[in-house]
């Protein structure tokens, strides 16, 4: 092996009690790819410029996503990481693995790539960091032999992700893992063959706590909610929070309710459910006494994104409530209508949220065949920017 690269600047990042990616990479510095990678990064820190190029024609036969081509611009100085492609692997719904499966993936990855991984990327995939072009097809073949597939990248449906919902959480209003898996399987073509103006992300959260940050990070967020009344156990409330102490119900719950729909006289909690926006705050605080209602489903929100080309957007409500476990076909229909419209009129690299802002929510709804609803607002107590036509007006 060539000499170990010296990395005094990176070594600063190994100091202190915090986890460090440098510490982890140094554990496998005997791997020539990792050695050169550390050297290249040290050089970037010294020169204050990055040395990566990304994109180009790189992938596996038949797929347009899942492989992100990466090359350095210093092939003579760092030849071992000159080709350092990233692989996105579609994660199991809810990120449930057994250790045997992870070992299999790591064995394949040590054979075919750098051995460096990122569990998980911000879209949710398993990310395998750094391999050469010639290893892509064998790697893909090895992954499929253990029933894994590549995820999305480029202008396609990105790998859908979800919270672990009913598997671990009592608040889940629908089976996020099941729906995420079904949507992933239904849109396989759109996931592997990019055909959109830009990326499209689905994320599934079981309740408004939104553990996968779907409202901020996905174009189409499916967030669990309920239609009927919050269930209150007044006896448990007294036992755990009034007599048991620890929570100032008036200050910590009632006054923090965003729609001011609660009242507390010191002995009895009342909720005006018609004003409740199902934010989950009271349930989170008084979790032994309050529960979501029984009529559970999901709200579909649209247009969220992190800042890349334009600024960050939070998704807004498109469908206030749907019995999602029994209405998936309806969701597919709406989503495909949206894709058709966006595909026809969307600009290159324009996310759906930006597209809706550009054409106006009223026009968008008209084109996709949805009726405006009061819930379709981007911020509480703001104008939805829909102009309603009065009867008789043209």
């Amino acid at each position: 092996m060539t000499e170990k690269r010296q990395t005094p600047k990176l070594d600063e990042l190994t100091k202190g009690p915090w986890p460090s990616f440098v510490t982890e990479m140094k554990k496998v510095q005997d791997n020539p790819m990792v050695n050169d990678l550390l050297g290249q990064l040290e050089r970037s820190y010294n020169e204050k410029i990055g040395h990566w190029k990304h994109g180009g024609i790189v992938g596996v036969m038949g797929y347009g996503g899942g492989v992100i081509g990466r090359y350095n611009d210093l092939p003579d100085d760092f030849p071992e990481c000159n080709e350092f492609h990233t692989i996105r692997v579609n994660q199991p719904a809810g990120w449930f693995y057994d250790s045997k499966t992870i070992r299999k993936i790591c064995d394949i990855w040590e054979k075919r790539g750098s051995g460096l991984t990122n569990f998980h990327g911000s879209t949710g995939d398993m990310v395998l960091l750094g391999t050469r072009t010639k290893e892509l097809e064998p790697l893909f073949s090895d992954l499929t032999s253990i029933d894994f597939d590549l995820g999305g990248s480029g202008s396609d449906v990105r790998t859908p992700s979800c919270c672990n919902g009913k598997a671990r959480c009592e608040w889940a209003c629908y089976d996020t893992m099941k729906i995420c898996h079904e949507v992933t399987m239904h849109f396989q073509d759109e996931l592997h063959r990019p055909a959109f103006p830009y990326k499209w992300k689905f994320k599934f959260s079981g309740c408004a706590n939104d553990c996968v940050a779907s409202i901020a990070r996905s174009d189409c967020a499916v967030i669990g909610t309920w239609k009927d009344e919050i269930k209150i156990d007044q006896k448990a409330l007294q036992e755990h929070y009034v007599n048991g102490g620890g929570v100032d119900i008036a200050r910590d719950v009632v006054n923090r309710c965003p729609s001011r729909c609660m009242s507390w006289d010191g002995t009895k909690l009342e909720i005006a459910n018609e004003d409740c926006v199902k934010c989950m705050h009271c349930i989170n605080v008084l979790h032994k006494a309050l529960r979501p209602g029984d009529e559970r489903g999901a709200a579909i929100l649209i247009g969220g994104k992190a800042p890349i080309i334009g600024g960050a957007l939070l998704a807004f409500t498109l469908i206030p409530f749907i019995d999602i476990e029994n209405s998936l076909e309806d969701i597919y229909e709406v989503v495909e209508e949206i894709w058709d419209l966006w595909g026809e009129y969307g600009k290159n690299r324009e996310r759906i949220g930006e597209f809706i802002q550009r054409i106006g929510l009223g026009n968008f709804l008209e084109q996709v065949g949805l009726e405006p609803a009061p819930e379709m607002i981007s911020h509480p107590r703001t104008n939805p920017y829909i102009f309603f036509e009065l009867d008789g007006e043209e």
Partner: protein
Amino acid sequence: MSDVSVETVADTMYDMVKEYHGKKNLKALDLQKAMIKKFGDDKVDKKMCKAAIRQLIDSGKCTYSYVGGSYIVLPPEKTE
């Protein structure tokens, strides 16, 4: 629906990709719109275009490339 076959659409798409090579990157949607315009929406639809693109990619005549967005291009060996 039509007397235009998926193979014909795929061949026409391939000619278009070849014609635009080095001049403009084409997205799947550009190809789809061009085919519907050329053959008419009574003869070619989105489903057919999707199948034609799949045929082009699976046969290795075209490949995907990423340059900010995803495009359909000639594979490197066909451009040398």
